[in-house]
């Protein structure tokens, strides 16, 4: 079976887990073809395989075409589309844009179709005064996730981080925050080198991290809004052993008012709040730690337009106060409206920095698919 599709260097008796990712992928492809189906769907088949194996795959596809099989090939690598596909369909936001013959179109046209016409900005960023460098990251890497990541961040700046799903943006920030262990790299905060081995260290150095997945790594669902709010700053609200309850009540009330969090009582379970209000509680949690650098990962995902605008306003206000913000987002309008600079990440590498003045959707997308 493997030989039939041109793979001669895998012993069928080896366990799948002992193979490299690329070889595993080849086995998956062999498995798909072994079903002798008339229609084969391939979803990002070349994601993990090296270029010579890609050529092998294309040979297989061409052979299958000759046998009369039909193939649907999902990919974001535009060069592959033009090499192997007869027709290409573009989808955007769950809607089919158009289907074209690959011989009569080109890469730029496709990018334009992927980007589409824009909705008006939700909130235009008031430009804050950009100050000194507060964070410097040099050659940060994490095994199998990302490599050679370097960037700087200044006070008052909002650095947007763009990239396709799976590019490694969250992993970079998780490593910066001490959730993941780095393999190589140095981190400097206000010029001083720091060693961040856990979120505890990161918080100590003035970092804050609003994670991408509030249900699993953000909210304490069965607990009250109050506990969810003061948890990250609990040491500032406590003595050696005991929590100073009155202070936690005051701080939480202050945040509820400042962020317009809709809740009937701060003792309510956070699980009962809407997505937008839950997100605001998480923002409140990190604001109470009085960070110098706030990292937000998809801050407005899954929340209504009104709450979205409020979160944007909060972030801009922080920047105006001289705080630095790193914002990971997959929403083009959000990144373009909010960022002073945009860092693009593709397949675990930083592919470019685009200044807000020169940023366009097409440019960003191009770098994200590098």
């Amino acid at each position, binding site marked *: 079976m493997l030989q039939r599709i041109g793979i001669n260097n895998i012993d069928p008796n080896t366990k799948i887990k002992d193979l490299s990712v690329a070889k595993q992928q080849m086995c998956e492809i062999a498995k798909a073809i072994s079903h002798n189906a008339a229609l084969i769907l391939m979803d990002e088949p070349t994601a993990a395989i090296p270029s010579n194996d890609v050529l092998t795959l294309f040979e297989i596809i061409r052979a299958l075409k000759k046998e009369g099989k039909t193939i649907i090939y999902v990919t974001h690598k535009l060069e592959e589309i033009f090499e192997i596909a007869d027709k290409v369909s573009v989808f955007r936001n769950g809607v089919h844009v158009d289907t074209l013959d690959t011989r009569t179109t080109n890469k730029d046209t496709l990018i334009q179709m992927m980007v589409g016409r824009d909705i008006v900005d939700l909130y235009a960023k008031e430009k804050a005064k950009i100050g000194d460098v507060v964070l410097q990251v040099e050659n940060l890497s994490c095994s199998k996730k990302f490599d050679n990541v370097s960037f700087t961040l200044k006070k008052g700046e909002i650095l947007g981080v763009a990239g396709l799903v799976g590019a490694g943006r969250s992993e970079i920030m998780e490593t910066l925050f001490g959730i993941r262990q780095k393999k190589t790299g140095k981190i400097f905060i206000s010029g001083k080198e720091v060693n961040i081995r856990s979120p505890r260290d990161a918080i100590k150095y003035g970092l804050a991290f609003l994670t991408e997945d509030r249900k699993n790594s953000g*909210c304490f669902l069965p607990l009250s809004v109050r506990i969810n709010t003061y948890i990250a700053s609990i040491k500032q609200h*406590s003595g050696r052993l005991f929590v100073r309850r009155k202070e936690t009540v005051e701080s939480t009330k202050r945040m509820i008012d400042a962020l317009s969090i809709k809740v009937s009582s701060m003792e309510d379970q956070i699980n009962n709040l809407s997505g937008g209000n839950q997100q605001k509680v998480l923002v409140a949690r990190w604001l109470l730690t009085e960070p110098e650098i706030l990292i937000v990962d998809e801050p407005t995902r899954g929340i209504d337009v009104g709450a979205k605008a409020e979160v944007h306003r909060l972030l801009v206000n922080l920047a105006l106060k001289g705080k630095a913000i790193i914002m990971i987002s997959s929403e083009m309008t959000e990144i373009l409206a909010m960022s002073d600079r945009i860092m693009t990440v593709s397949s675990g590498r930083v592919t470019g920095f685009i200044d807000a003045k020169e940023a366009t959707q097409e440019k960003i997308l191009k770098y994200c698919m590098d």
Partner: protein
Amino acid sequence: MQIKIQDQNIFKKAMKKYSTILILLLMMLIMTILNPKFLTINNLMNILRQQTPIAIMAFGVNLAIISGGIDISVGSVIAMAAVILAKFAKVDSSGAGYPLIVPIIASLLAGGAAGLVNGVVIAYGKVPPFIATLGMMSVARGIALIISKGRPITGFSEAFNFIGGGSFLDLPFPIYILLASYLIIYAILHLTKFGTYVFAIGSSQMAAEVSGVNVKRTKVLIYIISGIFTGIAAIVLASRTLSGQPAVGEGYEMNAITAAIIGGTSFSGGIGTAFGTFIGALIMGVLTNGMTMLQIEPATQMVVRGSVIILAVFADQYRNNYKS
């Protein structure tokens, strides 16, 4: 007459808060109807005396369950601690022995040591709590048998008579130990930073990690505390029987866990109270005492107790279905 939505919600909240006490009162009512001798001061004091060790153990186990873990070693650890206590509590023929404080500290240290091992294995070894404490269940029982050479150790000093059987202000002394234990666990769970960490870890370990909680260190402390409370329970138990018996405690962990669950603690983590566990332990005490008064066979009693825990977990899942 229409009940306003707000009033309905308040009723729901009140039900949730007071349902365990209501269950306790209801059970006491039923028992009294079935056998009026149930509701005597003597019998009620008996229930408290019997149930004190279980209740104290339940306080510790409750802590573990709220954090998303479990401690099933407590039934064996109480035997190990009781045996170690007995070794130091023993007086020779001339009446000479260690000062009272020594066997007491020994029991607490024994429980704490077992808890430390549990905690390290769970937090740093990343062994699931059920497996780790299952192993300790066997290890502790074995150590109890080795130290005692398989036989009860008796011959305690006079002081233990008072601890186990004495009274102070008309109440049996063990009740004061129970109350003190309750106040301590209430403070730990509901008033300290550590308590907040326990609830946080039980709700979402990942979120706790990101929020800066030292998850590993907190977990170790949780099992140490559970162990120490088992050590306290061992003191009460050994004082009552004036002996350190290696076979004691079989099935106590079941009783303790059931007490916590009946009291409102959830296996999914992040939910539970000290008071709830206290009432839960009393409910289990009333249940056992009531069944004995109705002359129900011990074997049948086991069936009933087992059914109760299944019902309690069922009710728990129905109550706390916030985790989809």
